[in-house]
């Protein structure tokens, strides 16, 4: 009885832990996306939200490279597009998280979809297992799971957990590198056997012709022909088929091995990752987790891998083990749709060494002198950042050197690192990181008139067409970028050097301009004051307000407080922005229905960052909507649908 209880407890524990889907997620996944279908479905009501899931649909893209026809795609083992768009039809448990992640085991990489099934039979019925050509599909059973695979796609079912794996395209994997049908079944044994058979027949023929008998020549040729070994071709074909099967099996073995590893709880899984679990337990509508270092180390992002990506050279790779700043890096992005508000949040996680550095980088407040350059009366939106540029420059110099040194590379490529270090040693860091001090505001302050030339035609008395150039006044958004100055001497030096370029016109000692051309019909002014570098297309600012706008025309104290409070801040006054667009671009105030819909629905946009915390820094973006009683997802989808003309 005791034993039975222990076994029961153990199996219950195992059962429970097996149900934790994060146990199935490998820790080396370069990204993981989690979707809460139940929430999205409920919040979107009758609107179609699946358009946002488009980037997650793999398979179709891979097939494009294979150049397959529609006929073959209709015979896919499973349609990943339908799976993501209509999970309910596939028996997916909508209450449980649906994961998409990228992984690589040995030479095979691809995208995996991991989800819990509510109805295994419904899912099984969606698999197209019967319409594949010979050698294009295999099915295998292992202790824990049933697996189905084609060359590009595999499906595994382990109890109520299912996995769909879409293999990445690999040039050297392509079938045409092993085109059996083109070679036919002519191998060396076929040639030898054929030769021997011909020799035997010839000998027989020779013997009979020389036997002294009176023979019918044509009949003898027929007789000898009938003695030819017809099994030679059959045997060659069998050998070839066995070889082909071996090759195909080898290919399938790779995929099956990978899928078999992924369909069971992972030894090193995401349950032990604190940042991932935090996002997981946050109950978000959707979130994405990026393993930053893993992404860098992968071939696509590793700058050292470009020249060996397509090489068969298996030279041993080296990397430095020093991961002082680059260990435990990850980024999590979450999205939640609430009533009247959509909240996007990102958390960049780092280790404790980085935290100390980040504290210094972000231990600054916005330089209040910059506010005076922003036209508060016409302010439509802005973005600001305040960081210690010197500290940031120092940090990223060390960070990237450590990162590059730690990436796998050939021995001879280590010299590139030495070269980079040498190059950095020669850089004037004071010029690079302290000309602008890290305090910046980028703002849109209404619309300005710009003269634009265009081509048209006039006609003479006989209606012969002549090309003419005319001028029209167009509205362009007024933009201003203001940056605080660290080292004034260096700022002046750079300003003077830049102003010498022939494309610029010096207007004053501290102002030069780029006058637009037919390719860029926009005038840009560059100005240097005692406390700021200003880049703008607002002529009024550089001509009349370089000392700053009067206090009553500056940004409101609420905006100033908001900017001063956060190292990164952004705010868009959507209503004012849309009204500006309406007045500028729509004649007589008449707009399209979708634009009106936006005007009646959209509230403001806000973005702000947290101070660095011990394990990460958070940036939050919020889109508010005027209707606070209805869910933001539903309202956004409705706006988009109106924009599409539905």
């Amino acid at each position, binding site marked *: 009885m005791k034993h039975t209880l222990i076994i029961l407890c153990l199996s219950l524990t195992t059962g429970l832990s097996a149900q934790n889907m994060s146990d199935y997620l490998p820790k080396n996944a370069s990204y993981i996306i989690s979707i809460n279908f139940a929430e999205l479905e409920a919040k979107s009501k009758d609107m179609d939200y699946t358009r946002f899931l488009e980037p997650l649909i793999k398979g179709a893209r891979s097939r494009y490279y294979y150049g397959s026809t529609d006929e073959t795609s209709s015979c896919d083992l499973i349609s990943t597009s339908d799976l993501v768009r209509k999970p309910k039809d596939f028996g997916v448990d909508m209450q449980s998280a649906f994961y998409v992640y990228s992984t690589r085991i040995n030479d095979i990489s691809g995208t995996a979809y991991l989800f819990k099934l509510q109805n295994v039979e419904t899912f099984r019925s969606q698999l197209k297992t019967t319409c594949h050509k010979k050698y294009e599909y295999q099915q295998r059973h292992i202790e824990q799971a049933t697996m189905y695979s084609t060359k590009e796609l595999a499906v595994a079912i382990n109890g109520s957990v299912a996995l769909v794996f879409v293999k990445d395209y690999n040039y050297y994997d392509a079938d045409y590198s092993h085109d059996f049908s083109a070679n036919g079944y002519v191998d060396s044994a076929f040639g030898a056997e054929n030769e021997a058979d011909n020799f035997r027949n010839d000998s027989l023929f020779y013997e009979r012709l020389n036997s002294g008998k009176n023979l019918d020549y044509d009949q003898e040729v027929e007789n000898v022909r009938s003695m030819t070994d017809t099994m030679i071709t059959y045997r060659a074909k069998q050998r070839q088929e066995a070889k082909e099967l071996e090759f195909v099996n080898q290919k399938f073995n790779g995929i099956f091995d990978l899928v078999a590893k992924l369909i069971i709880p992972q030894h090193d899984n995401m349950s032990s990752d604190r940042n991932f679990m935090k996002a997981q337990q946050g109950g978000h509508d959707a979130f994405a987790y990026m393993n930053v270092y893993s992404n860098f180390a992968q071939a696509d992002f590793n700058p050292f891998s470009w020249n060996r990506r397509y090489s068969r050279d298996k030279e041993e790779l080296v990397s430095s083990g020093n991961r002082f700043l680059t260990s435990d890096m990850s980024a999590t992005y979450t999205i939640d749709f609430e009533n009247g508000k959509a909240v996007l949040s990102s958390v960049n996680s780092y280790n404790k060494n980085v935290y100390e550095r980040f504290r210094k980088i972000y231990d600054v407040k916005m330089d209040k002198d910059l506010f005076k350059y922003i036209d508060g009366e016409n302010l439509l939106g802005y973005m600001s950042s305040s960081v210690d540029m010197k500290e940031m420059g120092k940090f990223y110099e060390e960070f990237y050197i450590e990162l590059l040194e730690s990436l796998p590379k050939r021995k001879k490529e280590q010299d590139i690192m030495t070269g980079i270090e040498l190059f950095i040693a020669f850089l004037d860091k004071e010029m690079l990181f302290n000309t602008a001090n890290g305090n910046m505001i980028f703002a849109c302050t209404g619309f300005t008139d710009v003269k634009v030339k265009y081509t048209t035609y006039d006609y003479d008395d006989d209606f012969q067409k002549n090309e003419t150039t005319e001028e029209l006044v167009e509205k362009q958004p007024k933009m201003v970028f203001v940056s605080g100055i660290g080292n004034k001497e260096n700022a002046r030096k750079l300003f003077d050097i830049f102003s010498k370029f022939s494309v610029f016109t010096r207007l004053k000692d501290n102002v030069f301009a780029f006058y637009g051309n*037919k390719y860029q*019909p926009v005038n840009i002014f560059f100005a240097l004051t005692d406390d700021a570098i200003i880049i703008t297309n607002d002529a009024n600012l550089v001509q009349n307000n370089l000392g700053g706008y009067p206090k009553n025309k500056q940004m409101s104290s609420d905006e100033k407080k908001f900017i001063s409070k956060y190292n990164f801040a952004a705010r868009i006054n959507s209503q004012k922005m849309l009204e500006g667009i309406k007045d500028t671009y*729509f*004649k007589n105030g*008449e707009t*399209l229905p979708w634009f009106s819909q936006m005007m009646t629905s959209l509230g403001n946009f806000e973005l702000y960052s947290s101070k660095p915390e011990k394990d990460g820094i958070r940036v939050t973006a919020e889109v508010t909507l005027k209707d606070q009683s209805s869910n933001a997802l539903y309202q956004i989808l409705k706006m988009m649908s109106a924009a599409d003309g539905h």
Partner: protein
Amino acid sequence: MKTRRVIGLLCACLCLCGCFETIEEVTYTDSQSGTYLLTLNCSKSKSRLKALVKLDTFMGLNIPKQWEVSNYFNTASLAVEKVPGISQVNYTEDYTNFIFTFTFKFDKTETLNKAINAAAVSITNKSNLPYYNVFNSSEETFQRNKTPNDSMARLAKKSSQHLKLISGAKATAIYRFHKPVKKVSNSKAVISKNGKAVMLQQDLPKIITDPALFTNTITF
């Protein structure tokens, strides 16, 4: 699909440009043959178009890429070239000023009609497009016929808002002959000083709602 992309660009032009012009020129060098030139000038709206072509879709319509537009021209010119009696097919694309032209020489008006129909079929990829005589000519008259209600017009008609947005768009037709013109049927059409050319200018939204406004019968 192909049709939708062409319509996509045109409608997007219509909606965002507001101001653009199309110029149709038929110049007869003798009683039979001549040159056809079609110009689409969106130069006045080039700033907005530059922004627009960077998008994939606008208002649910696919915006074709530059290479796709080139493809349309290429396809059309290849189709027109195949029509017997057509020569010197040429097109120009100016993506700085957004001016596009399409021109060819024809040996008789019937061939001109065939070429226009061939271009329409090739661009829209619709082999079952009904054949339509754009022009008719005889010793005594030259006719510009009513454009059938094509898909673009239907699409634009769907929303009166779209038509309001293109209130500045113009369509011009110029027909030059080797002999003097006696009279024109369209009250908006004007005869040139030398009497051998006719020009008709109309607002494009009006033509879309009433294609008959662009018809004209010229009597010699």
